[in-house]
């Protein structure tokens, strides 16, 4: 398993959040919406935006971390969090152009998608259900990573316009 990247298609996202269910079951052993590494934002009904780490090749989050709690997983390209080192200061989520890293609600340590070590559960369930809003592709094809390295609100504007004619 080489470097991978998760491709997204908000048009295909049903907002069902099975990805969040699968993610939190895998990482927390419980269904836990706010501890999911992937979040689906729905600013308006039907505007469903899957939001997760875009693995910027420049890794601004890692650069911003003063305590060296973040590193790249050499196997997958994902950003891994060293919970012992993380102080929960929030520098990384300020540095991230998409505002992706969040604090775990109880541990108060940063959580970021770790690509499940190379076979992401969110992608599997999204495809099991036939939506295909998430897909795994080789990381070398992520030259357009910045498309998704934005806050959900930015994507929402265009989608709203496409679906509802931009009146909002």
């Amino acid at each position, binding site marked *: 398993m080489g470097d991978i990247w998760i491709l997204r298609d908000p048009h295909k996202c049903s907002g*069902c*959040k099975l990805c*969040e269910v699968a993610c939190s079951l895998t990482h927390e052993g419980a269904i836990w919406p706010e501890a999911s590494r992937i*979040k689906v934002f*729905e*600013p308006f009904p*039907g505007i469903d935006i899957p939001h997760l780490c875009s693995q910027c090749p420049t890794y601004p989050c890692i650069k911003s971390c003063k305590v060296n709690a973040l590193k790249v997983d050499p196997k997958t390209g994902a950003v891994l969090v060293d919970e012992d080192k993380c102080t929960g200061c*929030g520098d990384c989520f300020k540095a991230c152009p998409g505002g992706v890293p969040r604090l775990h609600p109880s541990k108060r340590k940063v959580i970021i998608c770790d690509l499940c070590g190379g076979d992401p559960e969110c992608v599997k369930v999204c495809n099991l259900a036939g939506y295909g809003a998430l897909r795994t592709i080789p990381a070398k094809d992520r030259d357009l990573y910045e498309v998704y390295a934005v806050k*959900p609100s930015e994507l929402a504007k265009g989608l709203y316009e496409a679906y509802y004619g931009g009146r*909002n």
Partner: protein
Amino acid sequence: MEFYGYNGKIIEVDLSREKVRVKELDYEVLNKYIGGRGLAAYILWNELGDKWEEVDPLGSENLLLMLTGPLTGYYPGVKLCISGKSPQSNGMVGSVLSSEVAIELKAAGYDGIVIKGSSKDPVYLMVKEDIIEIREAKHLWGLRGREVFLKLKEELRRDSTRGPWGLRGDPAFIYIGPAGERKVRMATVMAKLVHAAGYGGYGAVMGAKKLKAVAVKGYGPMPKVKYPGWLRYLIREAWNVLLKQHSIRHWGTTTGSYLTARRSSSEPVRNWQEEWHEERSYSPRSFEVYWIKRYWGDYGCPTTCMKISYLRTSEFKDSLTDGPDYELQAYLGTNLGIFDPKANIYLSSLADDLGLCGIQIGNLLGFVAELYEKGLLSKEDLDGLEPKWGDVEAFAKLMVKIAERDGIGDILAEGVARACLELSNLKGIELCKYAVHVKGIGVGAHGIRSRKDYTQFISYALSTQGGDHTSAPLLPPLKRWGELWNAFNDSAVICSFNVPEGAEDLPFEFLKAITGWEIDLPLWGKIHGRRILTIQRVMLLLGGPDLYWDPRLHDRNPPKFYEPLPTGPFKGSKVVEDEFKRQVKEYYSALGWDEHGLPTNETLEELDIKFLEGAIKRIKARLKSS
């Protein structure tokens, strides 16, 4: 006792005294009543049972409940159960809608909310973990659904993103439209523009309490479960089963008009004067072209039967609704003589926006249109409107008048059961024979005359929730889609569409894996479910303060169902009186009820609900004197 599957806490808000407290839930109570509809029956009985007949559902003394169940968050799909004394039936309805408020409540550490009293000024409730605030809502009062949604969403997002956490999910919320504010008895509790708890009329109860919305945000996991490993296996199993429901996934219930009208001849047409039509324009194919989203669902639902319709052009521009689902295709379509999908989408969108139940309002408008057709109501009676079959604009105008209680709308806002009495008085003619309701609740869009859709004659007549098609008694009582079966789904709180045929044991396996309780479907039917229905039945027969039901008169179908179907493949079919009586007898006896449908002493003993004794005496005394 350790709780599994519950937080063991419920929020109690007294709007009159502006007090909020968190109460512990009793383990034994949960074990007996499970959650949602069952827990609602317990809470309502406990708080209001002794004075049930005097409680005005639209008065400050009524309670409004928002409850989750032990399967919330775990079983695929997320539902919330709304309840209280119903301003439609004067009994109790467990009214279930899709809303992520349920999962947020669990994540915030609660199992539900009880609202008491009523506020002087418009307010909304905000629950964020242990912060529970009653907030001013003057800026939201008077607004229609879509405006409320946009304003509140923005306001709550600012709220929830405060703090050094990073980007977090938005709070979920439920709200009412203008109809609820004006205590229209057909008002819904809404979520995300198109989800509605319609049956029961709890939007009016919320409005009576001056409560515009309830928003909830939680950050924790779902409650601890007894057997986590087994539960994870079951979740996978449920996904696999649900993903095989191809038709409902692809079309939702929008196949309904085609199937129920053409095949089973059981769709209301022109106020149930017929139940058959052959309009090919009304197939799912002609609706799906307007879907901007084919698969849409709430948290954890693999079925995603919801479809979003949006009209970008035409005279109905900017209409936004779901499928529409079958019930609204029927009630805001065929029942009004409307066979144009776009007009149907428009009226459904308007009902959603006003916060009116599409079933109840379509049922009522059909009633009005038939009276107009027959010359029993005139243009003058209807403030200059002429609701002819198929006249979309006239129906739209009436809907707005009803939501605003303007002119004739004020009488009609009382719902078909009360409006027909009032109009009969005013006109000096008996008009209730045209009203298609059972015990104050307009019946769902599934006819019983052809016996090909709802196959038994007792499905509405004996329901503890009146005309509610999602709580329709069947024989044998535990049959799929029967009231006893559905009562579990409403108590656990899950979606009946997520329990496919052949998978009836699955929710009970979830219950066991989550709580450790050994309750299976037969035991549910014998004890737990029967207990809940028996309490609901007693509440319904207590009724009051404005209308009371007499089982000898009201355990009946609407008069229309005793008339033969005039058209279609089942022309001539109607309710067969002897067969109906036989079914009534068999059903009562199966539930342990006497000839009037009142629980026998043995039943009270067996179900451990002897606290109903006094109420039963009150009902019997009333029956004797009338």
